[in-house]
């Protein structure tokens, strides 16, 4: 039993602000019948939020809905519903949670039904499942669908050819469809303005994530990090609201650094920082609190994570660029974390361990997410070899509660923490 669930959760003002933003977005989505707004369903990685908004459309993100259902412990039933409809046990559990939600009236967290999408906008194929997912949704809704093909950066670089190929698709396929569905003509200046706001928020987000370079990190860049990326990875990138949110958040963290405070957890400030870790892979959502508690109870702080880069690898320098709007959207899609080849991911992890003075690497491998998990064991061994720091591997799932074995995960984590201790004292001796 998760004791954290019983205690009152400690919240800062950025958290309250974020909660309100998300609630407002769900309200906007569930009131399109009255407002007449059009809805594009799309995915977090490679999402073209600035472009969608420039047509006055709203964006609905099925993975975020699945995460919401996972954290509210509703995804289990939804997944079983989808399995009854013929989806295999091994299919991505975000997909099954989404299908399960649809079969139950597609109710949003505010209790109102979600509108059917006016456009299915697939703007990222770094995850192949996304394409199949939208095929299922197209079958369900029979709505307009735009599928943008994003080439895999197998050699670790974005070539001009790749960029031009994506730009061409944006100009010839995506924008015309958005115009058709929304009835609004494409306005590049509106897009530029949105991109300008994106870049501002992105600067502050990077500052926030890099604040974990402080030894006595003021944040947890994984469990806390998923909250910090919330607005920018979802419907708010390119809005003033996001700019304001990140300004407030940055202020809070500056304050924490000044006061010498560690990360905030659901049970308050972390009293000590015993271990600094880099984590690869998404978190488990169905037992999120319980999972987090296994870390903070042991004094383990995640100082950097790759999951907080799935919606944009901003810390490596990319910014949305109002001066090159379509090209920067193309670069954004091409540069998503899971679109990067394994050597690049290894290098990122290696650099994180060095830059953030981490004790080691922990991989949370997701059973139903091959785009993340394939190759992770090799990555781990390579990172261990290069850094000489210990690594560990745990396995859970995104939103299928059946695949979170708390005893097993805890056992491995404790072993890992003790392994770090042992290595440390060996080094000291």
């Amino acid at each position, binding site marked *: 039993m998760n004791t954290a669930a019983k205690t009152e959760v400690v919240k800062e003002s950025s958290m309250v602000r974020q909660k309100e933003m998300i609630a407002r977005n769900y309200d906007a989505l569930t009131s399109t019948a009255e407002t007449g707004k059009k809805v594009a369903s799309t995915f977090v990685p490679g999402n073209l939020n600035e472009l969608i908004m420039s047509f006055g459309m709203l964006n609905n993100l099925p993975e975020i809905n699945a995460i919401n259902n996972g954290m509210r412990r509703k995804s289990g039933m939804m997944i079983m519903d989808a399995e009854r409809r013929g989806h295999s046990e091994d299919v991505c559990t975000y997909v099954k949670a989404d299908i399960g939600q649809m079969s139950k009236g597609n109710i949003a967290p505010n209790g109102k039904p979600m509108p059917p999408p006016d456009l299915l906008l697939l703007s990222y194929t770094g995850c192949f499942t996304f394409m199949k997912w939208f095929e299922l949704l197209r079958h369900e809704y029979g709505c307009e669908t735009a599928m943008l093909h994003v080439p895999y950066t197998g050699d670790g670089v974005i070539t001009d050819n790749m960029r031009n190929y994506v730009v061409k698709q944006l100009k010839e396929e995506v924008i015309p469809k958005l115009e058709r569905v929304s009835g609004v003509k494409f306005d590049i200046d509106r897009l530029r303005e949105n991109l300008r706001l994106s870049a501002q928020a992105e600067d502050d987000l990077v500052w926030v994530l890099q604040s974990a370079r402080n030894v006595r990190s003021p944040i947890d860049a994984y469990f806390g990090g998923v909250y910090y990326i919330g607005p920018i990875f979802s419907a708010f990138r390119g809005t003033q609201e996001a700019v304001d949110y990140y300004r407030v958040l940055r202020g809070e963290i500056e304050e924490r650094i000044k006061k010498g405070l560690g990360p905030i957890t659901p049970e308050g400030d972390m009293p000590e920082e015993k271990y600094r870790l880099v984590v690869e892979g998404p978190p488990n959502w169905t037992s999120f609190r319980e999972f987090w508690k296994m870390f903070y109870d042991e004094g383990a702080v995640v100082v950097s994570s790759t999951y907080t880069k799935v919606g944009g690898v901003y810390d490596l320098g990319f910014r949305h660029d109002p001066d090159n709007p379509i090209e920067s959207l193309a670069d954004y899609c091409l540069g998503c974390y899971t679109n990067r080849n394994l050597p690049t991911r290894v290098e990122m992890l290696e650099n994180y361990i060095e830059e953030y003075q981490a004790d080691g690497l922990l991989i949370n491998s997701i059973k139903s997410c091959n785009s993340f998990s394939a190759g992770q064991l090799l990555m781990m061994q390579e990172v261990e070899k290069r850094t000489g720091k210990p690594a560990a591997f745990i396995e859970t799932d995104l939103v299928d509660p059946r695949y979170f074995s708390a005893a097993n995960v805890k*056992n491995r984590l404790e072993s890992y923490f003790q392994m770090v201790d042992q290595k440390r004292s060996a080094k000291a001796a």
Partner: protein
Amino acid sequence: MKCFVGIDLGSTTTKAVVMDDNGQSLGHGITNSRSNYDTASKVAKMEALVSARLTMFRRALKSIDELNGMVDDVIDGLERNFRLELFLEQLGDLRQTCIKQVRQPGYTGQWDQLSEALDEIFNRLEQSLLALFAPGAERKSDFFRDLAGAEYMNVGEKVAAESGLAFDNLLNVYDKSIIEVENRPPETALAEKFLIALDRVFTERKIPADTQIVRSRIEEALGIDFEETYTVGTGYGRVRLPFPKEHIRSEILCHGLGAHLMYPKTRTVLDIGGQDTKGIQVDGNGIVANFQMNDRCAAGCGRYLGYIADEMNMGLHELGPMAMKATRTVRINSTCTVFAGAELRDRLSLGEKREDIIAGLHRAIILRAMSIISRSGGITDEFTFTGGVAKNEAAVKELRLLVNENYGDVTINIDPDSIYTGALGAAEFARRAGTGVPQSH
């Protein structure tokens, strides 16, 4: 003397090791984990202390020249008779508990008859247990539950038939009582039991030394106080131990260190226990560098064999010897324990020989273990195999084959006491913590 205790609470058995302050293992003990880890750890520790005491006796008797060459015999006799004492005490407890049970309302009207039958059963049980502990007699298990249970079934059925009682009632009484008795560790006063046992040894055989001197040496050894300085717990039940957090270590670290203590050149450890399989890489100091475990599924573990044994209506310990008789190895593809049961029946119906199928099942387990090892970083010379399954000769045979196929010529260490590896590592951690030695040395 100062001593340090390591306790490994496994899913099937609980093990304890007692160590002195020089890092010498003095003794070890094992018991079934039951559903009560508190009792299991108490019993395992008591067993380890008994075994440590026997080590003291052995050291003490070595100074008597006349006993040269037969110290081990004397110690064996002492242990056997001591166990008999313990068993008789537990048997007495079981008798009292059973008699109390029949006073429950469910047995109204049958009280006299049942009590009489129980008296008869326990009188006979006492005799048969005495025979089991006679010199040279073989026992299938050293756990009270196993021995008393098997004999109770035998004797109980006969007594029920003779007295016209329903055997089911006697069985119910036993089932309820054994749990209670098992969860009540034997009363201590171990010294007294050792002295009674010593007298029995003297009457059993002639000792070529002055029995007074032997007795006084044993009494001196009994006088050495085991001062429990530090205890470390490990294994799945570790959080249930009544220890503060710093007295608890992960079983990965304990197995790594334990294997290093047994074979200092160990670099890779495979441990196959009841419900988990661990592949561990250690450095030259026994520090864990990497590990992998089975997750979500226990198909490659000891319980898999337990399940198969049940399916085949065989004893767990009969599986290995049967598999060794195989002339070929049937390929078992299933990675699921329950499916393996189905596959087994399917193969039987196709006319495959039992021993060949069982050999295939052993191979299936080892194949899964090999996958876990390779995920942890492969096998580096030397390789140490530990855990309950390391006692199974057919599993060891398959392991040797697969290690050789995949990693070539590698030294494979298997200690007959490998089941204590985790507890040994825990005891060493306890010693380091208790004597201020750095944890990594």
